Every structure is written in C-alpha cells, then in structure tokens.
C-alpha cells in the first residue's frame, strides 16, 4: 500500500477535507509560505490561497477566539499551534468558551473547531516547548481529545475531527512526524472513541498513547524472546475513551501497565488506571502500574531529556516485574 509519513498524512487529511468542503479553512502562525512550525501545512497556501490558509499574528488567545466565532457562525476552522505549550495562552477560548457554548446555550449553537498541535519532548527544545498537557483537556466536558500514534490513524482521525460538530483537540507528536506507514489515498474515517489493539498478547495489557505506542511495541518484541506476551492497546482518542476494549483486554491478561509521556502525576494514564481499578478490579492479578514522565520540567540536555520520559528499556523492566 502507499506509504506516507505521519506529517504527510495529516496534511493530506486537511487537503482532502478542504477540497471537499469550502467551509474548512486554516488559521495559525506561519502556516502559509513557511508551511507551519514543522512543515505540516507546506503547499496548502499555494493550493487554497490566503483566504483559507491564514497566517496570524502572534496572538494565540485572539486567533483561537476568532476561530471559535467563525465556527459558531458556520465555518470549520482548523487552528494550528506551533507547540502545544502555547495552548496555555488560549485556554479561555477553548475551555470557557468553545467547550461550554453548546451547553450554556441550552443546545443551541455549536462550535465545530479543530485544534492541531504537536506535543512531547525529544527535540532539545526545553521546558517551555516540550510539554504533554493533553490530560488537561480531557478534564473538560464538551471537548474531544485525540492523540494519534500512526500515519494511518492520523489521517482517519483528523477527517473525523474535521467532520465533528464539536471542538476537538488533535495532539500530534514532534517525534512521530517523520515516521512512515501505510495510508490509503482515498479519504476514510476512523470513528472517534474506538481504541485499536496494536498487538495481541496474553500476559500483560499495555495501554500506551502517542509516541509510547511504538516504544511499547519495541518492548514487546524484546520480551517475546523471554516468552512474555504483551497486548498493546492504543486508545487513539482519550475523550471519548473506549473503556470496553481496555477492560476486555485486562479481563484476558489480568495485568495492566499504562504508559504515557506526560508527567505521571495527574496524567491521563491515572484516569485509565482508575477506571480499571473500579470496573476491572476482579480481573486483576497484580497491581496496576503506570509509567509516565518524571515530575520535572523537561530539561534541554539530551541525556536528561531522555531520562525524563519513559523509554523502551523502562517498559521492558516494568513489564517483567509485573508478569513475574
């Protein structure tokens, strides 16, 4: 099948939706001639013009609010934040406005807004450019939160996000942009709220998100040699969450490890672990383990940066501890 990078598949999803629906347009800093912070929007200005690919000033709160207003009046904006850390400047419009309008207005008015932004560490960009704050948005009713881990998932989920009548946050990962995978050319939708079993296994359920999916798969390869069989589940969408797939897997394996890059404390993995501790308790043969980021700002030094978030070796070690 045709191969695309994660970055290209995101671009293609936007391109195809923009061709299909002229209400879809892009808005963000340097997304035009520069092609966006990481090059995701390269070429789109040429095809769709300045009216639909809008370079904004450095005004995150302002242009996010503009997108909310445009969405409320019938357009379908896709906003890019160069780094997900900058969402922090626009949260009033995302959390107090976009997420609540439909409810506060008693079911009238909707905000079909997509926010795309790369999270994660690994580029040496330090504490203000490397955070993973997706858990924050999962705490807010009225928003959907997506975190694709493969080129295939990225394209199908972004189409779903653009077609969705609600505000959707689409978390990309800097280190995934160059990863390659099979991606059909024709548009397709992956339903929001459906997890994907990335690998079947019998001894331990590993729920991993974003970049951690590939690290978990690597760990699984290693552990196979020691006859330890991991089942790896990628929720793909955090809100809504496919609890059933996770619980079914834990029912089978009796063990759960949740792996995520965000700071372990109060990360979304805590929600997943808690759901299983409540609804899957009788399946459990061992404590629920979480592997998450250390409770430190992300340092710029490469060695420390790597040590700040889970790596393949960490997953192997904890997995062994759980099955033994």
């Amino acid at each position, binding site marked *: 099948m045709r191969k695309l990078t994660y970055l290209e598949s995101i671009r293609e999803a936007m391109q195809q939706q923009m061709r299909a629906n002229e209400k879809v*347009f892009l808005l963000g800093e340097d997304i035009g001639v520069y092609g966006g912070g990481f090059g995701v929007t390269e070429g789109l200005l040429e095809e769709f013009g300045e*009216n*639909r690919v*809008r370079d*904004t*000033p450095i*005004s995150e*709160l*302002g*242009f*996010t*609010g*503009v*997108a*909310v*207003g*445009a*969405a*409320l*009046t*019938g*357009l379908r*904006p896709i906003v890019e934040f160069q780094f997900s850390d900058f969402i922090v400047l626009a949260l*009033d*419009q995302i959390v*107090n*406005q976009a997420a609540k*309008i*439909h*409810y*506060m*207005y*008693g*079911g*009238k*008015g*909707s*905000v*079909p807004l997509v926010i795309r932004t790369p999270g994660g560490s690994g580029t040496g960009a330090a504490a203000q450019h490397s955070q993973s704050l997706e858990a924050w948005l999962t705490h807010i*009713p*009225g928003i*959907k939160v997506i975190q694709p881990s493969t080129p295939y998932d990225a394209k199908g989920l972004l189409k779903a996000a653009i077609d969705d*009548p*609600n505000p959707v946050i689409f978390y990309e990962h800097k280190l995934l942009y160059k990863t390659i995978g099979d991606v059909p050319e024709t548009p397709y939708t992956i339903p929001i709220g459906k997890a994907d079993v990335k690998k079947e296994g019998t001894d331990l359920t590993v729920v991993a998100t974003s970049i951690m999916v590939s690290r978990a798969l690597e760990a699984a390869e290693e552990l196979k040699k020691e006859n330890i069989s991991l089942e790896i589940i990628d929720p793909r969408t955090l809100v809504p969450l496919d609890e059933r797939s996770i619980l079914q897997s834990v029912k089978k394996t009796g063990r759960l490890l949740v792996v995520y890059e965000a700071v372990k404390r109060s990360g979304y993995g805590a929600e997943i672990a808690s759901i299983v501790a409540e609804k899957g308790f009788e399946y459990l043969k061992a404590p629920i383990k979480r592997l998450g980021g250390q409770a430190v700002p992300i340092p710029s030094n490469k060695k420390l940066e790597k040590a700040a978030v889970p790596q393949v070796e960490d997953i192997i070690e904890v997995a062994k501890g759980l099955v033994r």
Partner: protein
Amino acid sequence: MNVSTQNEKLKSLYEQMLMIRCFEEEVERNMKKNLFHGTTHLCIGQEATAVGVCSILKQGDNITSTHRGHGHSIAMGADINKMMAELFGKVTGYSKGKGGSLHIADVESGNLGSNGIVGGGIPIAVGAALTAQIEKSKHVTVCFFGDGATNQGSFHEALNLASIWQLPVIFVCENNEYGMSSHIKDMVNIENLSSRADAYGIPGVTVDGNDVINVMEETKLAVDRARNGRGPTLIEAKTYRYSGHSKSDKQVYRTDEEVTERKEFDPILRLEKKMIKSCMVNNQELQEIKYKINQQVEAATQFALKSEEPELNELFADVYA
C-alpha cells in the same frame, strides 16, 4: 426618512429603552425577593447604547454581549418571557435554565451570546465577522464590552486581527466609568478609550452613550464602513451604571451624590423630553406606554413562575452537539 416615520422610529427606540429599564427593575425586584439562584448584572442607565446601536443592524447581523447583557438581548428582539424564565432557571428559558443570566444567547436571531468572561466575547465577534467576509455575506458584527474589558489581552489581540484583515466588526465599548469597583481613570492612563483605536489603525470615536440619537448616528457610519469592506471601528459610548455591579455590591467605591448627579443625564428622560418638546407624544400617551410595558414585564415574571424546572436528565443533555 420623512418626519412621521422618523417619529415612529424614535417612539420605538423609546419603547425598547423603556422595556429594558422596566425589565431590569423587575429583575431587581425579583432578585431582592431572592427568587433567583445566582447573581445578575443590571444595565439600568445604559439603555441608550444597546438600543441605539442595535437599531442600525439588519437581519443576519450579529452581536456578542457581556455579563451585563440583558439590554443587548432585548435590543436584539429577545423574548422577555424566555429571558425571565432563564433567570428563574426554568426549562422555558433561552437555555432551558442551564445558562442563567450570564449566558443568554439566541444564535439564530444574531445574539451570539452574553459572556461571563470579561473580554471573552471580543475575539468571538471578530470570528463572526471573518465568516461574513469569507462568505461575502455583507453582514456585520457588533461587539459589546465594558471599559474594564479594554485592559484584557483579548481586546488587544482581537482589534489587531480585525484591523489587519479589515473585518466587518464594530467594537462598542460601554464606558460606564467603573469595572466592579475600580474607576477607569485609575485603570488606564488616557483620556478617551476610543483613542486606543489608533494602536490598530482603525477609526475611533467617543459618543454620548446616553443620547440614543448620537449613538445611532455614529453607529450608522461605522456599520456602513464595515458593510462596504472598509473595516472595523471602535466606538466608546460614555454612560453610567445606576445599580450596583451585581447582587452583592455595597457600592462603597462611589457616593450617592455621584449617582444622583448622573441620573440627570438619564437616557430615557432625555428622549422623553425630546419627544414631548417636538409634540410627538403627550404625557398621557407616555403613561399608557409605561403601563403597557410594565404589564409585559410582570407577565414575564408570571410566565417564569408558572414554568417548569428542567428535568434531571437535562443535566446530561447538550454537552456535545
């Protein structure tokens, strides 16, 4: 327009302003009787701005409003029964009782919503104007906010965006001199807030917000510019709030004298005088109008009282579209 239509127009403006006044006074009575759960912000004294501005708008135009938004909603033609019911938390209210005073909206009719976040509505208005520009609909958006909101970053970012994209939006700052308790003179170091327009290269004008005619005239100019693709305008309407900021306000930050003084410039009385002077109406007709309107606002309270509470399952409805 000819004299008689002009007079009709004035009369309808008067009735709208009076409706806002009487509605707010009824709300105040109900609030004092503790009939509401939650607070509300009254716009008594500021009626001319809402009415003068909205009287210029056409079908398809939009507004964004604030925490002090009852007047804007009524000036956009809201149903006062649904408004009062919303304040009572009843299912017959604009938001089925789930939004309350701070979140009255009627998107179809162009009221994109009151807002509990000071400055929160400003970029949203710019977004609505962007839709109009992209869809070439010729519609304009009016963005209401207070003097205090002009110190929010959202004000700065939104006005700049509206300017560089030359969007059809009119920024209407209702300068009632106070935030919650702080006087605008202590919160900015400039004479007129309208001068902030210069920082964005857009026209800025200060009007007497208690003179509905003045408000209309300047709004007309701004709306015409916007409709013709000539971009945004900042209008500062100087006015004054009579009631406390909200339910709990003890008003220690100003004197009764100050409030009494300001009431001499009451927007409704001024229009009344004008109408009587030009023999458009006589006192008896005015009494009839007032009677009629008070009937309507009392009926609104009755409607609200008679209405049902939302069912418990409403709690879970409308989280997602």
